[in-house]
Structure formats: C-alpha cells, structure tokens
C-alpha cells in the first residue's frame, strides 16, 4: 500500500473485539473513554446504532463486532470507547468505536507488514489494511476509512421498525 512505502515502522493502538486482537493507526485516535450512556438511534444502520456525548459533541458510536459479523456481548468492566477521526467523503468526522478491551500503543516493524492474505481471515479482507507481527501474534491493521465508506454503511432502515434492536450497549 502506497502510504506505507518508505515508512520503517508504524505506531498502532491494539485492542480486542470478541477475543481477536487488531490494531488501529495511533495517529487517528483522539482519545479513549470509559463506556458512557449510549443513546440508541432507531432506524439507524445496525452497527452504527448509538450516539454518545464526547466533550459536548454528539458522536456516532460504531460497534465493529456487528460490522464483522461477530457475536455481540454485553459490556464488561474492560469495555472502552475509542474516539477516532475518520475520513468520510473527504471530510473528517469523529466516530466512537466500541472495544471489548484496549491494550497499548505500540510500534510494529514495517518489514512484517504484509499484504492482506485472502484466506484464513474471519473478517472481510477489504477492511484490513495489512497484517503486522507483534510479539508472537499476527495483528490485522484496520483500514478504518474503508469501514465507514458509503456502500458499506449498511442499509438504513428508512425509519421502519422491522429491525429488532441489537443489544449494543
């Protein structure tokens, strides 16, 4: 991937979703918050079903577990909201991501950044920017802009009531 060329290493934030560890570019992360009151948006896209108050701003809360077709479990004491900046149609938008657990900010060696393998991944390869090796683990680095791209935002239920509420919070 073009952006990574000439970069020796990448700083990432690692977190866990349903027992799987993955990483976000650390530069995109604004802050990490404890879980606060989540307001449900009826009729909104299933994985973007909530709104939270981040320092006086109303910020959409995304549950990537639903996006990646994982099971959704009730929040625990480790649940955090990772506030990140996403590029949406050329505009920076602040979004909160629900994480089962947040680990650390770490450097990954550029040499081990490999292109996405087509097999052996439990989530869709187009959301993964690359795979890095950290300690003994393989960690997927998310292409976060891609996750929120228009075509993948999920069908908006058009305000209808048929979708049963996902127990996001």
């Amino acid at each position, binding site marked *: 991937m073009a952006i990574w060329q000439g970069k020796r290493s990448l700083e990432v934030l690692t977190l866990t979703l349903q027992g799987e560890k993955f990483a976000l570019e650390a530069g995109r992360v604004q802050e990490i918050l404890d879980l*606060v*009151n989540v*307001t*449900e*948006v*009826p*009729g*909104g*896209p299933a994985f*973007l079903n909530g*709104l*939270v*108050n981040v320092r*006086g*701003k*109303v*910020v*959409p809360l*995304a549950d990537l577990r639903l996006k990646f077709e994982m099971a959704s479990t009730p929040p625990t004491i480790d649940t955090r909201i990772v506030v990140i900046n996403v590029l*949406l*149609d050329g*505009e920076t*938008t*602040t*979004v909160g991501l629900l994480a089962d657990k947040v680990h650390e900010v770490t450097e990954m060696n550029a040499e081990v950044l490999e292109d996405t393998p087509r097999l052996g991944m439990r989530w869709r390869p187009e959301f993964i920017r690359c795979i890095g090796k950290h300690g003994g683990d393989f960690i997927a680095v998310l292409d976060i802009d891609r996750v*929120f791209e228009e075509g993948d*935002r999920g069908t*908006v239920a*058009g*305000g209808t*009531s048929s*979708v*049963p*509420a996902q127990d996001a919070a």
Partner: protein
Amino acid sequence: MTGGGDPTDTFRQEAQELLEQLEQILLDLARSPENAELVDSTFRALHTIKGSGSMFGFDAVAGFTHHVESAFDLVRKGKVAMTAALADIALAGKDHIRNLIERPESADPATGQAILARLEATVGGHGAAPAGPKPTEAGPVAAPTAPTSKWRVQFRLPVDALATGTNPLLLVDELRALGKAVVTPLLDKIPPLEALNATECHIGWDIEVETDKPKSAIEDVFLFVMDEMELKIEPLDAPVPVAAQTAAAPAPAQAAPKAATAAQPAKTATEALKGGGSIRVPAERLDNLMDRVGELVIAQSRLKQIAAASQDSEFKSISEEIERLALELRDTTMGVRMVPIAQLFGRFRRLVHDLAVELGKEITLTTSGEETELDKTVIERLNDPLVHLIRNSIDHGLEPPEQRTAAGKTAQGHIHLSARHTGDKVLISITDDGKGLDRARIRTRAEENGLIAPGAEMSDSELFQVIFQPGFSTAQAVTNLSGRGVGMDVVKRTLDALRGSIDIASTTGKGTEITLRLPLTLAIIDGLLVRIGQGRYVIPLSAVEECVELPPVQENRANGSNFLNIRGDLVPFLRLREMFNAMTPPDKYQKVVVVSSNDMRVGLVVDQVIGDHQTVIKSLSKLHAGVGTFSGATILGDGTVALILEIAHLVARGQRERPMKLAS
C-alpha cells in the same frame, strides 16, 4: 479581523463586498442616471478596487477596472452623459471583475474586451482608452480655459490618518501640482512632547494655491479622505468667502448640488465603505462561539439540578446567578449571528433586472421589512430557493406587457418581497400580480401522475402543495421551470432542512403569493422532552398542538384503526414505541402529543411527557444522514444524548397510513 490570513484573501473579501455595493449603486444609477452622488460612489468603488487590486498583484483586475473607472471619470466631469445603457455595461463589467478576482483562470479576456468595446462605443471619442487619465492626475490634463484664481485651502486630517494609510505629503504635493502654491503648516494643535504620539498626525496645512483649475479640481485631491477630515476651501480673490465645508458634510456636496437629495443606497454604500464601526469575523468563529455557549448552557443546567437538591443557600444563589448569565450570554451570542435580510433582498434586484431584460417584461421590484433579522446560516441557505421562486414568478406568473394591458392591468408587472416576524418565526413572502396558478391544470397533472386520487376533494392550499412533490412533472406543468434542473421539490427540501414550511395562495388573474415560514435560528429550539421506552426524545415545541391521554379503547386495539377522535376530527397516530422498538413494558397511561406540519396533524404516542426543554441543536453526522426520523440531537442536563424528532417526516408517515382522504 481574519488575522494572519493570506492578505489576498482579505482583498478578495473586501472586493466582494465592494462589488456587491457597486452592483446596488449601478442599479440605482440605471434608474436615476442624473444622480451625481451615485456617479461619484461608482467612481470611488472602482478606484478602490483598482488600487487595492494592483497592490495585491491582481493586475488583470486593476487593468480592466481602470478602463471602466476612466469612463466614469468622464461622466463625473460631465463630459459624457450617464445613461441606463452605460449602467448596464458597467454591470457587465462588474461581473467580469468578479470573475477576474474569483476565478482568474476561467475569466475570458475576450469577454473583457467585448465589454470595453461596448464601453468605448457608448462613451465615444472621449478617450476611455487605456491612455485615459487617472483620476488623481485629472487636473493637469483638463483643458486650460479658466482664468487663474487664488484659493486658500486649509485642511486637517484625523489624528489616526497615518495609521489608515493616508499620506498628507502626497496631498500637499498634489495641490502643488495644480499651480503655484505657498504651503504653511499649522502647528497649533501639536501636543506637548510628553503627550506626543509619533504615529499620530497633529499638523494641519494652510495652502494658498494659484491655479487655472476649477474648485472641483482642488476637491478632487481630497476625494478619498474627505469624509473624515476638516477641509476649508475659499477663494482669495472673491470678496465673499464661500461657506466653509466641514467634515460632517457629505463628500461631493459642493461639487454636485443635487447631492442634497442623495439617494439612500448611495449613502449606505459610502458608510459601508468606511466600515461603519463594525469588525469582520469569520463565520466559523461565530459557530465555535455558539458551540461553546451551547455547552455552557448544558453544563449550567446540570449545575442547576445539583443546586436544586442542595441545602446550601449560597450555592443556590450562585447557581441562579450563573443561570442568568448563561442565558443572557446565549441570547447575545444568538444576536451576533443575526443579520438583516436586506443583504439577501439586495441580490435579487439584479436578478429581476436581468430577467426583465431577458424576457422582455417590464417589472418593478419592491421590498419591505428588509430590516428583519435572521440567522446568517438561514439567510445563506435561502438564496437558492428564493432565486428559484422569484424566477418562477417572473417567468410564469407575470404576463407579457400586451397581455397585461389587455387584462386591464398596468403593463409593468410587480413583484413584492417582504419579510416580517411572527412569534418565533420569520415569514418571507414573494407576491406577484400575474395570472395566478391554474388549478385545473395542476389537478389534471397531479391526477395523471397519480399524486392525488381522481376527484379527491382538497383545499387550494393542499392542491398547491402538490407542486412541491418530486414526481410533479415540470415539463408542461403550470410552473414550468425552463429546464433549469432545479425543481420545486428542491425548494421544498431546502425549506424542510431549515425546519421551515411553504404556503401558496393564488387568485386567478390577480396573482400569487408564496410564503416561507422559517425559524429565527437553527442553533436553538424550544422542545418538549418525552420518554419512549427508556429513550428520551425532543419534539420541537413549535410543532406541538396539544397533549392528550390515549383512550384505553385505542390502547387495546393496537393493530386496529390508528385514529384518534379529537373534538370531532379524526387524527391518525403513530405508536412511537413500536417504531423505536422499545423493550421495556409500556407505561400504564400512554400519552399522545398532537403535532402538526403543513396543516396536517398526527398524534405521537409516547410513554411520558417530561416537560419543556431548551435545546441546543447538534446535527447528526453523515453516518446517520439516511435516518429521516430525526432532524438532529441534543445533550440533556445529565450529559446523555437525546434525538430530536423530525416532525414533517413523521406527519408524512402518519398521513400515508391513512387509507384514504377523509372529509373533515
């Protein structure tokens, strides 16, 4: 002030304002070409654009403007008569200048040449050619016919003149260029050394000048500084001195006696040129300020909750004090965002002028209530819909002159724009005295398109709403839009986005009145806080008609007819619990909040009506743009987010669930 930004941006911004003023002045001038003050204003505006243009490296702008300015210099000197045609050319020139400034790469030099050619043809052999005299050098070029006379010129600049870039020495030099001059400085006003600020100008000048030029040539020297300075020009030969002219007098008052009847627009233009004691702030900063104030109000309401539960009387009184201050601050901040609608109406004069020429119709445009204030964002977003509606009125409402006289009306069509306040709304109406809407044709088209049931009984205002339906074909319809690609449905959508509504009243043969109703501001609304399941939602109070209890009979027929009998009217209602998938058991007594939009009512069934809530509106991100049920969100006193219901959307849903139109 923008502070630190690119200086050329400052120039662009200033030029844009100057060009807007210039447009207004030229339009006035087209109407009353004999008004000398307007000619002077035009000349000054052009001169400023030229001067600052060349200063900031916009050489094409400066070059082009110079020719137009030269032409107006000739007019000003009375060598060429001012005509409406000349004003028209100047308007085209003004458009070209704007192009040169805003999109220099796309501005076509040929357009400029064509305008200059027309200008040349109109001004004739008076040399509007490139070699035309610059205004400040005007004197020496004029023909030496007048006998020499002696003048005493006394002038004194405002103390801050140096800071605004005026150089008194240049003025003195210009006077000396007029003829033999004796210059004496007036040092009487210089303060003692310890009080002297070196950047201030305390010196006055007394100059005796012997010249063959008329007095106006002397006045020309001070053309650009005259408004603020003290200036006395008297003939030394004449036994009776001419009345002194002081700072308060309008600049060209003596040069042009007619100026006593100065037209209002010219005056305001001059005032605006001086800045009028106001400062310019980027709109973005105002938005930030409004955000901060919104947060303050939210934090304050949390404080109030805690104070209410506290026993500490001192704490309570501080909380009350802060509440008062926060609310005052909010009102002041909102006031800052309000701008008079005159700004918007002003732009339409040009539109009407151009359309009248283009369509060969005679049109007068009148306006009222220009001082009505509206949120800046609302004003900006109203521009396109209003352009569209005015265009429509002129294109399809007003008949050609022959038809009008045949119908016993004046040949000149009339468009009236008005704005006024009613409660927390602003009403803007566009009235024409044209032929009115053709009900039969609208109905036929609507029935053909399946927008209304054949033979359905409906009021005029309901029928006219059909025009705003996206499916209402514009091709042969009464409100044909000349294929400009923007339909009335876009107008309607913009109005919806602004939380406004639109009404049409029309009398066949007499004309049409289109009224837009808009909220005063987009930033804050009064809302009714309700609870549905566990979620709290805000309903805009302006849409709420009443709150009633849901009769148990209706309650039990959850899947039966969803109609409520309110004093004989059948009102459809929506069970928001079902729409929002509330999981908790319903409250024992369900409430119905009756809301209305466009004269249609719908009941919203909720668990609990919590109460009045002042709401700072936060828009939803693009990620939720597709959710039509909500117009935005707000933050409640305890820090949770609550969604604001979009009434127009809910009412439309409620009406759809009506099996057929019921006569009420």
